[in-house]
Structure formats: structure tokens, C-alpha cells
């Protein structure tokens, strides 16, 4: 009798669907439909004036243009190094904040502001840091004799590329640090104590215990960071608007400018679809890899 009662408690599909329906319907309207509409628009020459079906023309132009492949490669390079450094600095940060030092709980709060503050405002602060005449970086550089005069970091191709990346890393580091730290705290202490008794040093304990135990968190964070970095918009838009001479134009900036700067919705949509395809391919490959790793772990 009791069993029946429990089953009936947990098996009301109808109620379950009613409860998720509002959220699902809302997302279908605001995310689902726009996604399909983006695909449809990408086969048209839609603009403010109107639209006509043009087949694969947008894609053909896009894929044959050397400018687009250049932008795509640039986006990948930007994303790769940004994510890599987020993970490395995040790991260093987590190790530091995990050390049993005085002031630890204070440090753990102090790391969060870049994540909490709107990116647009953080980027404004960096804009000032990078300023050639009035920024602190240039100021220190001149004092130390590294620079012989004011240097505007956002005005030159290579330095602007690196500067936008550094700001993106800055935005991402607190989040990564936080998750690595939480992961470290979940590792059983006796593992470390056993290793200590066996004479393992600090680095060896980190390498043989922390790193393998953290692997699932590291993998999760690299996916989350990679996806959000790939479509990172605010930072570049505020710092350089994709300049100087296109040196920091990533796929998302290019898409935005095409669609809402020039009001070429069709061409912009084709670019947006390319981004969706790239992210999806990446995520699928990633989950495939993940499931293989999991299999290996459970069999080994």
C-alpha cells in the first residue's frame, strides 16, 4: 500500500510538465525561435529594406573570404590563450587561497569583485589602466625605463590584442579560482595525510593528489570558460570596438557590426550561424571526449 502511494507521488508526469511549462515556453519564444529565425535569415539578404531568399550566397561569400577566415583564426587564438591563462592563474589563485594563512577568508572575498561587477564597468577601469598618457601601466613603464615615452596599449595591433585578452582573463579568473578552490576543499584530507606520512613533498602532493582529483572540475571549467570567452563581447567592444584596424575583431564583434552596425541582418545571421555551429561542434567533441575519459576511469 505504502509502495503504491510513493509511486503515485513520484509519477505524475502531467504535474511535472505543468510546472516546467512556463519556463520552457518562455525559453522557446526568447531563445528557441530566435535561433531558428537566425538560420532562416542566414539564407536571405534581409535588411531594414526587406528580404529575399538568396540560398547559400551568404555562406559562399563568407567561406571564400580571406577576411573571415582571418577573423575566425584570430578568435580561436584569442580564446585558446585566454582560457589557458584563466585556468593557470585560477589554479595558482586557488592554491594560494587554499593555503592555511592568516587572512584567508578575507582573501577569498577579495578575489570576487571582477566577477560581480558588470563587465562593462570593469572594462572601463582597464581602459584607463591601458591609457598611454594617464594610465598606470605606461606610467610605471616610463619610471622603470622600459618605455621611453607614453605608450597607448590599445592603439597598436599586438598590444591591443594582448590587452583585451588580459582583461578577459581578469574577468574569468575569479570564477575559475572559486570552483578550483571548492574542488580542493572537497578532496578528503586523509589522502594528503597519507601522502605526507609517505614523505611526499608539497609539489608532489599537489601533482599526485590535487591535480588528478580536480580533473573533473578542470574539464568543466575549461568548457564553460571556452564557450563564454568565444563569444565575449563587452570587453572588446568597449576597449577597442574591434580595432585598431581590425586587430581585435573576433567573430562575435564582426557579427554584431555586420548585423546592427550596418543593418545587414542576412549576412549577420550567416555569421551568427557559423558561431553556433563552431560552439556546438566544440561542445559535442568535448562531451564525447568526456564520456570516453569517464569510461576509462570506471574501467581502470
Amino acid at each position, binding site marked *: 500500500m505504502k509502495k503504491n502511494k510513493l509511486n503515485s507521488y513520484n509519477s505524475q508526469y502531467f504535474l511535472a510538465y505543468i510546472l516546467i511549462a512556463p519556463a*520552457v515556453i518562455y525559453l522557446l519564444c526568447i531563445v528557441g525561435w*530566435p535561433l531558428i529565425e*537566425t538560420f532562416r535569415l542566414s539564407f536571405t539578404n534581409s535588411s531594414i529594406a526587406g528580404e529575399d531568399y538568396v540560398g547559400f550566397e551568404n555562406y559562399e561569400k563568407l567561406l571564400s573570404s580571406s577576411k573571415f577566415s582571418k577573423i575566425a583564426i584570430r578568435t580561436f587564438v584569442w580564446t585558446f590563450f585566454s582560457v589557458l591563462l584563466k585556468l593557470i592563474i585560477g589554479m595558482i589563485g586557488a592554491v594560494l587561497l587554499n593555503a592555511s594563512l592568516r587572512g584567508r577568508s578575507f582573501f577569498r572575498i*577579495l578575489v570576487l569583485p571582477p566577477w560581480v561587477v558588470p563587465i562593462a564597468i*570593469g572594462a572601463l577601469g582597464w581602459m584607463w589602466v591601458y591609457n598611454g598618457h594617464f594610465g598606470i601601466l605606461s*606610467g610605471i613603464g616610463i619610471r622603470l625605463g622600459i618605455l621611453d615615452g607614453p605608450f597607448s596599449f590599445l592603439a597598436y595591433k599586438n598590444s591591443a590584442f594582448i590587452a583585451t585578452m588580459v582583461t578577459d582573463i*581578469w574577468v574569468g579568473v575569479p570564477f575559475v579560482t572559486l570552483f578550483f578552490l571548492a574542488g580542493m576543499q572537497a578532496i578528503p584530507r586523509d589522502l594528503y595525510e597519507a601522502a605526507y606520512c609517505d614523505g611526499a613533498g608539497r609539489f608532489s602532493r599537489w601533482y599526485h593528489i590535487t591535480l588528478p582529483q580536480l580533473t573533473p572540475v578542470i574539464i568543466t571549467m575549461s568548457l564553460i570558460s571556452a564557450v563564454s570567452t568565444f563569444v565575449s563581447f563587452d570587453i572588446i567592444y568597449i576597449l577597442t570596438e574591434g580595432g585598431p584596424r581590425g586587430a581585435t575583431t573576433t567573430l562575435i564583434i564582426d557579427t554584431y557590426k555586420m548585423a546592427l552596425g550596418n543593418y545587414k541582418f542576412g549576412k549577420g545571421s550567416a555569421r551568427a550561424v557559423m558561431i553556433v555551429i563552431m560552439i556546438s561542434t566544440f561542445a559535442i567533441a568535448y562531451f564525447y571526449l568526456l564520456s570516453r575519459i569517464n569510461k576509462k576511469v570506471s574501467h581502470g
Partner: protein
Amino acid sequence: MDKYSLPLKIFLYLSITVFFIFILLPFVEMFYASLRPLKHIFRSPYQFYSDDLSFWAYREMWNTVPLLGRYIFNSFFMAITVTFFTLLFVIPAAYSYARFNFPFKQGSLWVLLAVNMFSGAVLLIPLFKLLRYFDLLNTYFAMIVPGIAFCIPTSIWLLKAYFEKIPVELEEAAYCDGASRMDILFRIIAPLSTPGIAVTAIYAFIQAYAQQFLFAITFNSIREYMPIVSGLTEFIGYQSVKWNEMMAASIVGVFPVLIVFIFLQKYIVEGLTAGAVKN
């Protein structure tokens, strides 16, 4: 376990210092710039200290941009509205995911994560058309409607983890005693999950506050509705850019969020990381 030796301790503190110089540099620079008189700000080469620093910009900024207070209000108003509606959508959905088994459950949870991947920027064109069709461009709703959508997925994941922690036996006992589903949701689940709902609300608020920039520059061109992040551009005048006041306004604009966050950070951090670390 082994204690830190003195040199190691010094090394650790030095590393922490370097780490935090990186984390706090733009904030310090912003604060510093906000204290400088406008003439001084353009003094080159860079000066690390001078004796004419003042809080003058914090007073003057309200005159330079008369709508500044309005912008800050807009930011809060929109973020709070987004949070409210997000909770309205998310509480029943998260409860359903935590308690019921139904076809497509796991699949739809992954689809929710995928929504997170397509950030607003990818979908701007159809969103623009959608908002134009419903005549919502240049209103508060132009920023609120898409804002809610992108807060929903993560919020569902967050809150689901909380609901799962509440023992199902409690509900079954009430159910056997004849309580209705709605009674259970409002009398048992809601009070027990208040901390979880609070964490979700704060998360949604922070995200809503942060993501305003893109929607504001794309879907709104009316000054009265601008959030602070796009209102800051008003300090860029025809004659000169009042950098010190712009920086002061930025600091004032983010300060309340920062304070709220610092008081509640423990719960947010625990709530956010709990799910990810477990899996």
C-alpha cells in the same frame, strides 16, 4: 602535517600580493582617477601621488549628468524585475526537476545548459525583430524580456540542487495526511528552501545587472530608460570627457551590488559550486 617555513610563508604572501594587484588594479586605478581634478588627470607623465586629490568629482557628477540618479535607479529596477520574473519561472521548474521523473528530463536539462552557451549576442538579430514586432524597442521591456531568458537556465540548475537536499519523506508524510500539492509547495518546500531561493535570486540579480550593457546599447536609445553601464557614456561631452566623474559614477554605480554581494558571498559561493564539484 608540515607547517609553513618562514621563507615559504613570505613567498606565499608575496604571491598573494601579486595576484591581488592583478585582481584589484583596475578598481584602484578607477578610484584614483576619480579623486583627481580634471586638469591633473591629463598631466603627463603619470604621477603616483599628488596633494590635490579630492572627492569633488563625486559631488559634481550629479550636475554634469543630471539623469545619473535615474540611470542607477534604472539598473536596479530592471535587475530586480528580471530577478522577480526569473524566480517566478524557475521555482516551479526547479521543483519539478528535483522531484519528478519524466520523459526527456535529462535531455531537457542539457538543452538548458546549451541555452547558456548561446549568449545574447548570437541571437540579437531575431531578438531585435521580435522586440520591434511587439513594439517593445526603447522601453524597459526591451532589456528585461531577453534578460529573464538568459537568467533562467543557470537558476534552474542552482535551485534544483537545493530542492534535492530537502528530504522527500517530509513531503510524502504531508501527502499521506491529505495535504494538496500546492499546500506542500507553499507550506513545506518554500519555507525550507528560502536560503536556496535567496542564493538563486542574488545570482540572477548579479547576472541581470551585468548583462544590461549589450541589450541596452542594442535595443534602447531613449535616455530615460538607460541603465548605468550605458549611461556612463554621457560623461563624454562635445568639448571634453569628464573622466574623473565618469570613474566616480562607475564606482557609485557598482558599490551597492558589491556590498550586497560581500555580505552574502558565502551562501552564493557554496550554492554555485556545490553542484559542479559533486559531478
